[in-house]
């Protein structure tokens, strides 16, 4: 029965290999491993194939061209190195290998691993968070410097600070920047300067050196002191390419001590130039402004109304005259037109005036009660009538009445 149940859970080779692949690749997706280089082959494709081994074991490695281009030292057979990479399983061959992406000489590799571990720890604790970064003062009154009192770094910084912004006073806390105890001295100096509270920015740093030389700035003690300080801190360690833990936790990183000095103060030449520019601009703007007010005033003073009120009256009077004249002319015209219309009416009237007819020799027959006789119906024989002529009338009687023949 036991055999039967075991048979039921039997895996195929592919299934087993797939499971191994998943397990290994998940667990070893990013590892540091130290060993001796052997069987190194630089393939024409640019990829490197080699084994890493120690007394007890070996592991096949490949480092592709893209990654091995950044390896800055010559690797040779038998060399002790520290390699970073991931495990990859190749099922068709049933083999696993390390795909390397970084390689360091062994001694440096140890420091590097320690550095990476601390970086990871601090990062996970939120020590690199942008929210923790304090703003640097724009015009510091006093600058605290934690560095070695000897050497080029302090001299460079002092020269630059003096040239650029002599207003800022400087307080140097001299420390050892390398060797045993350096980290303790640096962190103590940060604490003391921060507690004094008279510096409004601190520079901590040193000039270039090996990874070992710069080591104090990678120690947690220093990182904690930087994080605990209320004073803004600029980290300026080594050259451009060197990056230390202090760079990550400081409020600002400067690539070199000189760069830090340039970063934290303005250049007085720029300021003086700006003052010249500004005072010119201010004067000019003000002048323009006053000028425009003057012009406005002038234009008001010269305005028609203020200058010659009489002119306006004159013009008004003239307008009035003009209107009056027009009115008069219009009236005359109207009167003339009306007059000629009257003549016409008079002529028309004259044409139908019965008195004018009498003048032409016609007479008008009227009854005694002044009705004009128009028909034989109006009168009978013996009726008295009046005959009107142009200069008088006759009294008469009707002798006979006779209708017109049709």
């Amino acid at each position, binding site marked *: 029965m036991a055999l039967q149940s075991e048979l039921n859970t039997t895996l195929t080779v592919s299934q087993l290999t797939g499971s191994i692949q998943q397990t290994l690749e998940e667990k070893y997706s990013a590892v540091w491993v130290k060993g001796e280089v052997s069987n190194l082959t630089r393939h024409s494709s640019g990829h490197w194939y080699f084994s890493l081994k120690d007394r007890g074991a070996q592991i096949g490695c490949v480092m592709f061209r893209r990654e091995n281009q950044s390896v800055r030292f010559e690797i040779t057979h038998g060399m002790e190195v520290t390699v970073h990479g991931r495990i990859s399983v190749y099922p068709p061959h049933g083999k696993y290998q390390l795909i390397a992406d970084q390689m360091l000489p062994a001694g440096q590799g140890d420091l590097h691993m320690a550095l990476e571990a601390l970086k990871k720890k601090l990062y996970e604790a939120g020590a690199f968070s942008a929210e923790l970064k304090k703003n640097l003062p724009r015009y510091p009154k006093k600058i605290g410097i934690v560095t070695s009192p000897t050497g080029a770094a302090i001299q460079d910084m002092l020269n630059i600070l003096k040239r650029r912004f002599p207003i*800022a006073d400087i307080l140097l806390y001299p420390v050892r920047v390398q060797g045993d105890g350096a980290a303790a001295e640096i962190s103590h100096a940060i604490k003391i300067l921060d507690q004094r509270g008279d510096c409004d920015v601190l520079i901590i740093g040193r000039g270039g050196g090996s990874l070992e030389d710069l080591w104090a700035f990678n120690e947690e003690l220093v990182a904690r002191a930087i994080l605990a300080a209320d004073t803004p801190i600029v980290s300026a360690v080594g050259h451009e390419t060197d990056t230390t833990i202090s760079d990550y936790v400081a409020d600002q990183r400067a690539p070199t001590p000189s760069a830090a000095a340039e970063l934290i103060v303005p250049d007085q030449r720029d300021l003086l130039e700006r*003052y010249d520019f500004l005072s010119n601009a201010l004067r000019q*703007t003000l002048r323009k402004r006053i000028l425009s007010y003057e012009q406005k005033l002038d234009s008001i003073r010269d305005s028609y109304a203020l200058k010659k009120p009489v002119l306006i009256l004159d013009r008004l009077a003239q307008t009035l005259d003009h209107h009056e004249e027009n009115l008069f002319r219009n009236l005359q015209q109207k009167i003339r037109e009306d007059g000629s219309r009257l003549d016409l009416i008079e002529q028309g009237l004259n044409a139908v005036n019965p008195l004018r007819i009498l003048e032409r020799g016609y007479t008008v027959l009227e009854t005694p009660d002044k009705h004009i006789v128009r028909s034989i119906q109006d009168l009978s024989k013996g009726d008295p009538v009046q005959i009107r002529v142009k200069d008088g009338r006759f009294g008469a009687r009707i002798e006979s009445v006779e209708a017109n023949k049709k």
Partner: protein
Amino acid sequence: MSKKESSFDELMGELEGLVVKLEGEDLSLDQAIESSEKALDLINACRSRLESAKQRIDKLIEKADGSTSLEPIED
């Protein structure tokens, strides 16, 4: 100035504020003249601060008992 002497940073802050005001706001002629004069005074004050600056450089000496003293550095 009546109170404690203003820091360079304070003078610069005041100057920049006035410049912004002069550039941005619609000031009356009186206000503009007053602000401009004040800005010019500030510029002169800043300039003379820079020109007369005597940088003090000290080294902090810590004794074994933890007390500290300052020692000027000559350069």
